[in-house]
């Protein structure tokens, strides 16, 4: 074991010694990385930093609620202009849009999965960020 960095390598050529060192280093790095990764998974799902994800999620929610409402009212208003039914479709789509907005928020907070169904199969990470 201890003969590895010994005399045979050094007098022959530097490169083979360097290569052996590098292999050794590579193995140590990958072992440590695997260990690290396991600990990360244990701690908070994945390597993406839990705090960052929390703030990122908080920033999502408001826009999700508002945008669905905007789209709903927009579709309703457009259909009203087209079909000459002002203001009924806009009223209906206002409520549909609110529903979609609340659905978006629920999804982005991970309280329900996308289209439910495989809720249990989601990795903790993708659940965190909603779907």
């Amino acid at each position, binding site marked *: 074991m201890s003969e590895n960095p010994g005399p045979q390598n050094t007098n022959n050529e530097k490169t083979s010694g360097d290569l052996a060192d*590098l292999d050794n280093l590579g193995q140590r790095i990958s072992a440590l990385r695997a260990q690290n990764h396991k600990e990360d998974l244990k701690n908070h799902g*994945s*390597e*993406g930093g839990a705090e*960052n994800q929390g*703030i*990122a999620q908080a*920033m*999502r929610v408001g*826009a*999700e609620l*508002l*945008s*669905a409402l*905007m*789209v*709903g009212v927009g*579709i309703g208003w457009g259909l009203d202009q087209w079909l000459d039914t002002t203001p009924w479709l806009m009223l209906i*789509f206002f409520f*549909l*849009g609110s*529903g*979609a*907005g609340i*659905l*978006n928020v629920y*999804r982005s907070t991970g309280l329900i*999965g*996308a*289209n*439910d*169904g*495989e809720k249990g199969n989601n*990795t903790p*990470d*993708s659940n965190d*960020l*909603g*779907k």
Partner: protein
Amino acid sequence: MANPIEQFTIRPLVEINLGGIDATFTNAGAFMLLTVASVTLFLTLSMRGRALVPGRWQSMAELSYEFIAGLLRDNVGSEGRRFFPFVFTLFMFILFANMLGLMPYSFTITSHIIVTFILAMVVFIGVTVVGLLRHGVKFFSYFVPSGVPMAVLPLMIPIEIISYLSRPISLSVRLFANMTAGHIMMKVFAGFVIPLGIFGGWAPLGVDVLLVGFEFLVAFLQAYVFTVLTCLYLHDAIHLH
């Protein structure tokens, strides 16, 4: 006091008229080119050494690569690999646009809703096309939630469709609103510094120092959120739910 909105003015640099279409080169266009150029320079120059043990610049480039690769792996899975070039480009473009916008005297292209809306539409249309190519007509089953009683379906399907259509709006409004609000806030506080004089001026100056730090966080987070959502939409398109 300086007008806090003035920083968003689009100024023509070179007037170009293509057969009646106004294609003037503006400061927004200039900063987009600057963003692309600085991303390209950052990545090519920092990777030029290709050292086995990376230096500072090279490890920054490698970190950004691994960050996005990990994001794709976690959120999309192995099928997401082929979308890496697009997602990485998107992330670097938004990140550098946001960061360059924080430099003094610069212009923030992501503070214009039309820029963020086009970015979001590229993602939205691209993801829809990916879903359609992969699943054909079955893609539309995405709008039919599973495990819902038949009676509620007429209500749920429109809601699901509105929810799907709201994606580009929420993507673009979030990025635009955060960048615009942050820059206006910094300008408003900066506008108080001189009028309040040598004694009172320190308070808004201190707030502004904090805000600059906060804005760097927001600049990164918004690029991150945009990218994560792109990944999630890709996941939905590939796996349908």
